[in-house]
């Protein structure tokens, strides 16, 4: 409306000329939308935490499927010396024509053994492996069909039975915060009254800051968004870490069938915002920030890994006294001794010739003068 008013006030334009002013790249978002729907999306989510905190139940509630139909839970005596495994479940789900390939990476055995020294190592190794595989694929010749298995988000479950973070929680998050987006959650929040939840959240936020753990930060919303959105965004940020409840069962509450947990003293509704933060988590994870999580993984964590990798490679080569070569270093496997020697020889020859050239230039210069 304003544009046409502007035009009308300045120059007299007919309807036709207005069409001529319209270039048409405003349809770009639609094109992107169409293409992405055709291509489909993928998302890898990792869940980590001690066993018995409701991780599988929450994943089932989030994606309204049953991913864990036939899993076997270990007995206590089998878990005394248990090692951490990494298991992957991949499902293809579709909604309104949009396809999503969802991969859930589970970490059974984390924190379950009596001695949990470095129990997060298999997890960090797995994440690094995915990065490394993507790195190699990206540097390969045929890059058409790269499979992106990088972990986009890690939901870490904090037990609500304590007074805050425990040493194993702190160590895990510190080992992973520079490799993956960590979203801490307070699990099984139906054992905490609203006051206790608030106290625990404050405690956990304090401790996260105190220990310097970099959890996933929601991006700042743009200043031209409307007030409602900004308000929602502010509420979201103040709510972290989310206190969640999950459920595999559907119960009857207030005349409706909802996902919930049935107790003798009442019914906990998973999707009731006054009962828990499940809705906020779902909205954040799936409805608004899924793509941002992927972007941060690609732009920040993966780039960090890549830079680190390349730096290591160049420092290894630089140890052989290579001068700064004009050719950019390719991520090739380190050359064997023979080729290295040849390269060195050629380098020295080059250096000598350069020096001779300089000398001749200087002589000529002096001659001129």
């Amino acid at each position: 409306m304003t544009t046409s008013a502007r035009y009308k006030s300045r120059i007299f334009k007919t309807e036709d000329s207005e069409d001529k002013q319209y270039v048409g790249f405003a349809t770009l978002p639609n094109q992107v939308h169409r293409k992405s729907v055709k291509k489909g999306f993928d998302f890898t989510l990792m869940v980590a935490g001690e066993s018995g905190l409701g991780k599988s139940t929450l994943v089932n509630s989030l994606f309204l499927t049953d991913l864990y139909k036939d899993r076997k839970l270990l007995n206590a005596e089998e878990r005394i010396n248990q090692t951490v495994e990494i298991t992957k479940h991949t499902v293809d789900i579709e909604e309104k024509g949009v396809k999503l390939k969802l991969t859930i990476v589970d970490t059974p055995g984390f924190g379950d053994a009596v001695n949990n020294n470095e129990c997060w190592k298999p997890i960090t190794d797995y994440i690094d492996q995915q990065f490394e595989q993507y790195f190699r694929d990206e540097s390969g010749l045929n890059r058409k069909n790269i499979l992106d298995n990088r972990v986009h988000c890690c939901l870490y479950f904090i037990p609500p039975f304590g007074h805050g973070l425990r040493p194993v929680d702190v160590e895990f998050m510190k080992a992973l915060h520079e490799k993956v987006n960590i979203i801490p959650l307070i699990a099984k929040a139906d054992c905490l009254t609203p006051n206790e939840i608030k106290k625990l959240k404050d405690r956990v936020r304090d401790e996260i800051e105190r220990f310097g753990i970099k959890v996933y930060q929601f991006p700042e919303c743009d200043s031209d968004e409307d007030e409602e959105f900004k308000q929602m965004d502010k509420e979201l940020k103040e709510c972290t870490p989310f206190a969640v409840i999950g459920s595999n069962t559907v119960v009857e509450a207030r005349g409706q069938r909802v996902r919930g947990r049935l107790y003798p003293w009442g019914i906990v509704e998973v999707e009731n915002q006054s009962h828990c933060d499940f809705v906020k988590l779902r909205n954040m994870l799936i409805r608004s920030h899924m793509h941002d999580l992927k972007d941060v993984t690609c732009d920040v964590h993966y780039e960090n890994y890549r830079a680190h990798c390349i730096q290591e490679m160049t420092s290894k080569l630089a140890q052989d006294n290579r001068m700064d070569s004009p050719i950019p270093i390719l991520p090739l496997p380190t050359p064997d001794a023979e080729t290295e020697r040849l390269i060195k020889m050629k380098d020295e020859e080059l250096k000598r010739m350069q020096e001779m050239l300089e000398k001749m230039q200087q002589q000529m210069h002096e001659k001129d003068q």
Partner: protein
Amino acid sequence: MAATDVDVFSNEEKRSLSLGGHVGFDSLPDQLVSKSVTQGFCFNILCVGETGIGKSTLMNTLFNTTFENEEASHYQNGVYLRPRTYDLQESNVHLKLTIVDTVGFGDQINKEESYKPIVDYIDTQFENYLQEELKIKRSLFNYHDTRIHICLYFIAPTGHSLKSLDLVTMKKLDSKVNIIPIIAKADTISKSELHKFKIKIMSELVSNGVQIYQFPTDDDAVAEINSSMNAHLPFAVVGSVEEVKVGNKTVRARQYPWGVVQVENESHCDFVKLREMLIRVNMEDLREQTHARHYELYRRCKLEEMGFKDTDPDSQPFSLQETYEAKRKEFLGDLQRKEEEMRQMFVNKVKETEAELKEKERELHDKFEQLKRMHQDEKRKVEEKRKDLEEEINAFNTRKVAAETLSLSQPLKKDKDRKN
């Protein structure tokens, strides 16, 4: 009565007689009760569970009072036991209650040593009692008994099964203390899940041979209630000291947005059952079990370690005094033997040293002789040389004199020649 008569009586069958009238010894239990009431009772509870699982809250709820305690931190280096003693009174009964808390349990990354401080504490209390018992001048009736009568093991409500740490710890404790496992913070488990959870826990305990405390079913008065309670183990409890208005009553409860969990409502949780069993029915039995079973086991192991036995090598029953005498004799005998040995050793050493010294003396003597001989030889040689020299000198002198006399007769001639 003569000693022989008494012996005869004890070997005969005891005869039961009926009384002709009221004697009055049916007041014996009352006398016992009034005596123990004046003495006061003593009870020690050990609470084992992760930090923040609700141990202090449950104690406050059980005894309807607020024991002072600070919130523990998760970052302790190891497990510490924190005993606190309180004096409680209800009606005219005094109770000296000691609550021992495990601080830092389950927080470390490596929990392999977590059970050790607990076991050490229990053993120390047994040791103190044993020492008091073995004293010569002892005062057991005055002794503040700190042995742990009951261990409440708090299981986290995961809904799946026991944690590995729970299993390891309970196995180490079951032979030393009465264990009652309880499921803490049970308001996070729904009824159906709770049923499965309890079955799983009990089956895991049984399959791993963990002996938990069974409420006694041999006393008719309490057999029925105890046996039904045994089936409800482990108790799923909820603790709270806050009061909430429900209907027209104010009860202790936890207020949630979706409902109110009442602590003393039997359909909500097993708190009432726990209180009944622990305090109202079986407290005395717990103390007895601790003394008669766990303490006796400890004592037996300890004394066996020290070398005491109930039977001597001939398998005749041995009393402690005889054992003590035998031990003493043995000890003195040992001492004497050692003394003999040392003396022998000393004598041998002296002999050796003497022999060595003699040897050395002889060597010295030989050397001396040798040197003396050498010296004499040398002397002789020197003497001979001197004689030779003297002879030579004499010969020279004689020749000299001869030459002089010869030259004297012609000295003027020479002088004259020279003057010229």
